[in-house]
């Protein structure tokens, strides 16, 4: 309803000013994320970054104004699919982006890339199926494939000489991917591999007691969002923080750090983007984000910012004419833009070939918790499923 009213208003304005309606028809971007419920904090961080990208672009892509349609997936695959369907069928958007969760992305995937032949840019989720056999010319990622980040961590642990590792993660698909990822590269001894109930288990006393008894050299965890907060707090309260260091992926970030506070200090994690990466685009993004919201952006936000900038680069090259989809895909594939992670290339499966860094949780000069880069774990890493993708 609202969109139709808005559309009518635009046309009316265009006619009033005597402009041809076509030239002013804006570029439309659909953005699917979680904006309600317990995980809304992540969606909010993404939206702030998308809005910041829009501001930095002056509200224009390739000389044309652009509109963003935010849709809430409510953290449910079927809702995400229905929202994506609305975006491509009713709003007829030029791009669909966003997607925090693998299952929401997989549920929405066919509708967008196959049935509607629309370009989808994932700003977070990177399930192995899409990197491998389900890869598609219309799909691009500005994040990573699930296995890569833990692989980077495993590699780093080898160089650091951590001899034995205790793995803990939630018992669902991404959790299993992450633990499998670290096992791909880590060469030391895996003491044990524990999966906890998801999402209802918030108490890790039994696992921490087991770890204390097993005395490993390190713990590796994957607990996104609220669960990460809980694991880190309980790890510190149990006294294990003095004896067994914690290594993590996606469990300590700008969204969880305000709650984890000092307890997270000194923990190490892997990531393809860190807020202190020394490039101009990143400095501008992080500084303006902090100025506007008083907090650091997270990687969810950085990936969303990049997704918008990537679209803008294609629109720029085509002077705002997105009618030929082959040309748009070709331009996107060039990744010819200033990414906040530094330059990268797309692989054959349209996932980035990029660096992964090791970050440490620290306090900034103002006393705010954040992370800083301490090492490069992988350079120009290609994900392990790229070879399964039939695209060249």
């Amino acid at each position: 309803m609202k969109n139709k009213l808005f559309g009518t208003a635009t046309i009316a304005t265009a006619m009033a000013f005597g402009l041809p309606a076509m030239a002013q028809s804006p570029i439309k971007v659909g953005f699917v994320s979680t904006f309600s419920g317990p995980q809304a904090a992540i969606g909010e961080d993404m939206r702030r970054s998308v809005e910041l990208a829009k501001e930095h672009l002056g509200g224009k892509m390739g000389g044309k104004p652009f509109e963003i349609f935010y849709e809430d997936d409510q953290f449910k695959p079927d809702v995400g699919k229905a929202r994506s369907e609305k975006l491509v069928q009713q709003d007829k958007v030029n791009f669909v982006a966003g997607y925090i969760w693998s299952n929401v992305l997989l549920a929405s995937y066919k509708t967008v890339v196959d049935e509607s032949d629309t370009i989808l840019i994932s700003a977070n989720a990177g399930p192995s199926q899409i990197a491998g056999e389900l890869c598609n010319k219309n799909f691009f990622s500005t994040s990573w494939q699930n296995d890569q980040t833990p692989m980077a961590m495993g590699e780093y642990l080898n160089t650091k000489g951590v001899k034995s590792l205790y793995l803990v993660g939630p018992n669902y698909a991404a959790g299993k991917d992450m633990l499998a990822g670290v096992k791909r590269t880590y060469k030391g001894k895996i003491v044990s591999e524990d999966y906890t109930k998801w999402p209802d288990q918030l108490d890790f006393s039994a696992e921490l007691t087991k770890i204390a008894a097993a005395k490993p050299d390190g713990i590796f965890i994957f607990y996104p969002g609220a669960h990460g907060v809980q694991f880190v707090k309980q790890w510190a309260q149990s006294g294990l923080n003095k004896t067994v260091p914690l290594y993590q992926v996606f469990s300590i970030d700008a969204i969880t750090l305000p709650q984890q506070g000092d307890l997270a200090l000194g923990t190490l994690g892997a990531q393809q983007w860190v807020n202190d990466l020394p490039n101009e685009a990143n400095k501008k993004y992080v500084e303006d984000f902090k100025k506007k919201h008083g907090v650091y952006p997270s990687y969810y936000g950085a990936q969303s910012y990049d997704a918008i900038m990537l679209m803008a680069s294609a629109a720029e090259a085509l002077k705002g004419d997105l009618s030929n989809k082959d040309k748009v895909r070709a331009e996107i594939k060039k990744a010819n833009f200033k990414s906040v992670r530094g330059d990268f290339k797309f692989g054959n499966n349209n996932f980035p070939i990029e660096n992964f860094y090791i970050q440490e949780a620290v306090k900034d000069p103002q006393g705010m918790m954040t992370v800083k880069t301490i090492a490069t774990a992988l350079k120009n890493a290609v994900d392990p499923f790229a070879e399964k993708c039939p695209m060249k």
Partner: protein
Amino acid sequence: MMAALRTPRGLATALILLVLAILPLLTQAFDQRYLLSIGTRIVIWSIAAVSLNMILGYGGLVSFGHAVFFGIGGYAVGILSAHGVSSGWIQWPVALLAATAWAILIGALSLRTRGLYFIMITLAFAQLVYYVGGGLEAYGGDDGLNISRSRFPGVIDLRDKANFYWLCFALLCATLWFCSRYANSRFGLVIRGAKSNELRMTALGFPVFRYRLAAFTISGAFGGLAGILLANEGAYVSPAMMSWMKSGDLIVIVVLGGMGTLFGPLYGTIAFFVLEEALPPLLNLAHKGWGEYWMIVFGPLLVLIALYARGGIDSLLGRRHE
């Protein structure tokens, strides 16, 4: 038939069925493809709601795990499809059998309990299947499974959206027809009688447990049918389709529409989907950004419906003459 059209209920129902019957033509004429997608989901969910109504509305048995049949029907199709069996002539009967068998099993165990205990034991069995689905790593685990639509070579091509819709609509009509026969049969009268007074029915010599088990099984089979269609609609199955939230949604729909009425579940489904689609944009219209808080309105709305609209939407259409 003509007499029925003179009551508001008859008129409204006829109008809804007419619009649903020609929906693909309408959406094509007005170039609103998305409305056909919503329409398809409404029709499929209506089948599930009608099937739940058979035990919940007519029988007073509050099953809090009805979405499990979505999952069983859907996964049967999905697993066969993953193994290369794409023919609907095999997929659909297998899926229906699976749903029926599971309904007999959990019905036999659950129907010994009453009240809240029944609510919770049906929930428990649904959660069991939900977590098993999440553990099926060969079939995608929690990430779910992308499948292709069932094939009925030479008969109907379900990849065509309008075809698929019409098939769903025909099945909804069949379900409604069955339900009306069911409700007014001797069998249905026993089920309804046992809802208000179980002791009396037992005293009259009816084996209430067996009647209820039969009703539970029929209801599960139709639930499985809805699951088959849902899997085909999304070309995707995942454990999320049988989460307890979905079972809750189904209960809300049946109560919203009017329990124990033939068309109540249909009204309920339409109202539910319209609210979900329209409430956020409406709130956004009032004030930009409010749309995301639509549950602040939806929640109290549910409370009000529960408190003041006991007969659901159906009761708003005037008094029933039966």
